[in-house]
């Protein structure tokens, strides 16, 4: 079910059953991949909590960037928005940046986990 972007939206006249099935598969794969990303992000949050240093900011940004596009295009607008917030939090170059990142990671993890049954 998709209330999100029409590119992966519901079926329409002319769309083959095979296409619909393929898109559903891709949506499922995105959910699974995001769940793995959530585990990875959670480890970074834990490291941040224990050391006070946010590890691997570039890789975190890459995960977020990849999720912004894929989630939007596959009809998960809330997930895309949460990933975008994380992307924007990284590189704000303020003293509060690590705290912002941590908060954005937490929000994103929640958004990812809300997709899983």
């Amino acid at each position, binding site marked *: 079910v998709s209330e999100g972007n029409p590119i992966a939206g519901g079926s329409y006249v002319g769309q083959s059953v095979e*296409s619909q099935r393929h898109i559903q598969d891709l949506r499922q*794969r995105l959910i699974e991949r995001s769940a793995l990303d959530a585990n990875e992000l959670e480890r970074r949050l834990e490291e941040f909590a224990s050391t006070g240093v946010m590890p691997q900011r570039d890789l975190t940004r890459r995960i977020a960037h990849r999720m912004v596009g894929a989630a939007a295009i596959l009809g998960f607008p809330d997930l*895309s928005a949460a990933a975008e917030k994380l992307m924007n939090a990284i590189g704000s170059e303020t003293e509060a940046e690590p705290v912002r990142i941590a908060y954005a990671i937490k929000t994103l993890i929640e958004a990812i986990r809300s997709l899983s049954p």
Partner: protein
Amino acid sequence: MTNLSLFGRTVCIVDDDEIIRQLMTVKLREYGISVMEASTGPELFAIMGRMQLDCILMDYALASDNGLFVHDQLRQRFLNVPPVIMLTSDDSQRTIIKAFRTGVQDYLIKKDLRIEDLFRSIQLAIERRDKDDAIKAEFERLKSHADIDEVTGLYRGEIVQTMLASLATLSAKAGKSFAIILIQIDQFKTVQAQAGQVPARRLLSVFATKLRGAIREADICGRGDEQDSFIYIVDHAVNRLGAETTAERLKQAVSFDLNLDRLNLSISADFGIAIFPENGDSPEALIRSARADLGYLAIDSATSAEGHAPADAIVVKTDERRVNARKRVFKGGKIVVNEGRLVLDCSVRDLSEAGARLRVATEFDVPELFELRVFGSGEGRSVRMIWQHGKEVGVEFVK
């Protein structure tokens, strides 16, 4: 809106996210589009090496490369690069502007993407490309069918006129520009009058040989509407500056010394530029406009920027060497008359320690003494006008 069918067209999606690639593939195949997938620049290059693509959908932030860098590499490696549409999550204005500057056809944001928008963007990009290809094909066809003038080895004047008419029609339809450069041998008529037909014909032939050596493969050059003129068509230099660069290059090629029946001549040419459609929308209007522009580059290779060569005299080569090296420049400047009571724009084309060659925007009688201010060169300098030929002015610095 375009009705172009994309059935059977080939589009390559370049994205490091396999999920995105597969989704695009599924959606585009519903429209009968054949889809190729690449996750990196090198994978795209490999595909380009073995097949012709109609369009490329390129992610901006690839894992290993930046999409714009890959686009740049494409243009360096391949002659016929298909239109590129950026398809990305990056919606920063800076990136979008940068992308359009590098020549991408469209920029689509993934999070706002609708399949109709993507489809329309691909349609427009391919349609634009098809029109360009049609113009190129017609250009090539005309080139291959043209008759060659036996004296110069260049296209006959009638053929050039036909090509111009055809190019004007096609370019008008496609909303494209092209430039013509009218080239006129400086001393041909004088040689003809004073030395006779045979030396004049030889001059024409030698001049054309030099010109032929400077013609780029993509351009067309042939005889003009007068015996001593040639027309050079540049279908990819769409602005005046690009055409001027070509004219400068041609001028260097056709400035040479020639011995004709004991006459040692320094040969050069006048150049005039016209841009379609700004300066004319028909061959006649363009040639008229280019003729009116003749002289903008006028300076004989045997005369310094400061010296004047009468237009109706044969310039005989001497062994004199220029005392001050002349540097080709293209700078903005001001002609300041009467302590600033009158200020006029000009461009500075040649500059030496002794003087300069200027070009004024409109033809007027330049006063004998005035102040020249060259942008970026500090204070103005007093100069004396040595010669004037239309909009071209030679000046010497006054100490």
